[in-house]
């Protein structure tokens, strides 16, 4: 159902590098799952509201409070230390411009 070309397109959208030899198998696997979920087309969903989450809670927000900080200084440093590439207190990324 899904072609190798489509798999390449999806992988690019998802930012996943695939090896050439994996593509056929992924096309096969994805097709089989997509084939399986087609069975939902048998269900009459007229006038049914979508269930959009796990609870009935709606838009839980809190007041913005800049004095409230869940990260202490040590935690802040640990978070920054976990980054693969860092300069001072910044996350460093390669250039996105050609």
């Amino acid at each position, binding site marked *: 159902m899904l072609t190798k070309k489509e798999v390449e397109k999806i992988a690019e959208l998802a930012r996943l590098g695939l*090896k050439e030899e994996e593509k056929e198998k992924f096309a096969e*696997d994805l097709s089989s799952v997509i084939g399986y979920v087609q069975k939902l087309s048998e269900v009459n969903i007229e006038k049914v509201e979508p269930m959009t989450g796990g609870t009935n809670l709606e838009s*839980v927000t809190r007041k913005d409070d800049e004095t409230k900080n869940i990260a202490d200084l040590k935690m802040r440093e640990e978070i920054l230390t976990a980054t693969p590439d860092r300069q001072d207190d910044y996350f460093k990324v390669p250039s996105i411009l050609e």
Partner: protein
Amino acid sequence: MNLDKLTIKKAHELLKSKEITSAELTEAFLKNIKEKDGDIHAFLSLTEEQALEQAKKVDERIAKGEPIEVLAGISAAIKDNILIRGAKATAASKILENYIAPYDATVIKKLKEEEAVFIGKTNLDEFAMGSSTENSGFGPTKNPVDLERVPGGSSGGSAAAVKAGFCVYALGSDTGGSIRQPAGFCGVVGFKPTYGAVSRHGLIAMASSLDQIGPIARNVDDAAAVFEIIRGVDELDSTSVDMKWQDYWDRPVDIEEIKIGVPREYFTHGLDPEIEKNIKSIVEKLEKEGAQIKEISLPYSDFALAVYYIIMPAEVSANLARFDGIKYGLSKSLPKLLDVYLKTRGEGFGAEARRRIMLGTYILSAGYYDAYYTRAQKVRRLIKKDFDFAFKDVDVILTPTSPTTAFKFGDKTADPLSMYLSDIYTVPANLAGIPAISLPSGEIDGLPVGLQLIGNSFDDIKLLRIAKTIETIIK
């Protein structure tokens, strides 16, 4: 001391009466792990130093004659997708191989306040995606009951650790059955609370509208004891719910008070006939003891797995976008940012994670969104309504936990869909957000069978009490 039989209640008594110290208990578990975990591989890492330090603190308090909390000084194993500050948290993925958690998950914070002892981090399918631990980036866990068979998944390491006597209880996470199915396969108790009962803050997210943390333990009392500590509203999880909970220990439930629904859709094709026999014999036994049994129908059950394989990968593809080689974890250094993404994610994620990310990306892409995602959300509503309707008449729904007992390694790895079918009876509770528990209900050819009880939303305590009554009768 029988480490593989030790319950929270018993361990608490031993500590209080000074028959054993927490340090001795912790060391006994560590010794057992070092002797046997080479074969089982329940753990990805041990937190030995932290554990012994915590144990000694508890011992000092006991020596001073201070009262201790129920979980104090008692060893717990934690699934490796739950963050303990200062300890590795890999989610069994190469992309997080060397990641050290900079903060505690809320459940860990709560357990620390109880002075629980964390003995180590347990194996899982990568990012909790799987039903056997065969998708772990660091090798599978073996079922302590039969080393040639899988322990179930994704919380296979936690279930195996409890079964093997590596800890008294463990935490797992359950998105489509990941606590209950491995508990069933290993012959222990696994409880998935109502969505929103337990904070997900500090749980590495897989599918956010389905994920829930819960205990794996040796009996219902222990599962309840852990649940009573970890539950509660949390400002760091906006889907956690503020509830006034009943006290589990208040009063037991009499079997004659219980109305049990048995859904006919859960006893159709695909169910191992021996499991059907086992579950039906228990239903008969419960009826004889005075329970009211009612055959019920959950007509949309047949569509649950299809709904799950749309909603879940859609959420996975969004949640796993954060692993980009920039903020943490594996990073392939290349001059162009796009190549950093492609190579880091291509090499860091295993096959199942990539399959689900691609599936989610496809489903959410323009032109397919309504046909798949919106449709699935609507059918999800119908599945929820099935349960709402059923719970007007019954207190609890009784089903098998899984269609088979523990299968052999490699049996289902070639065909992802056959693996997905292992979760056919557990997925509906996640879609509906309702609580469910798996209890050991006997053995077939030496392999444990799991019985699932499903409760109504936020009836967690009622469900646990009923489970306790049923557990007593089964034993």
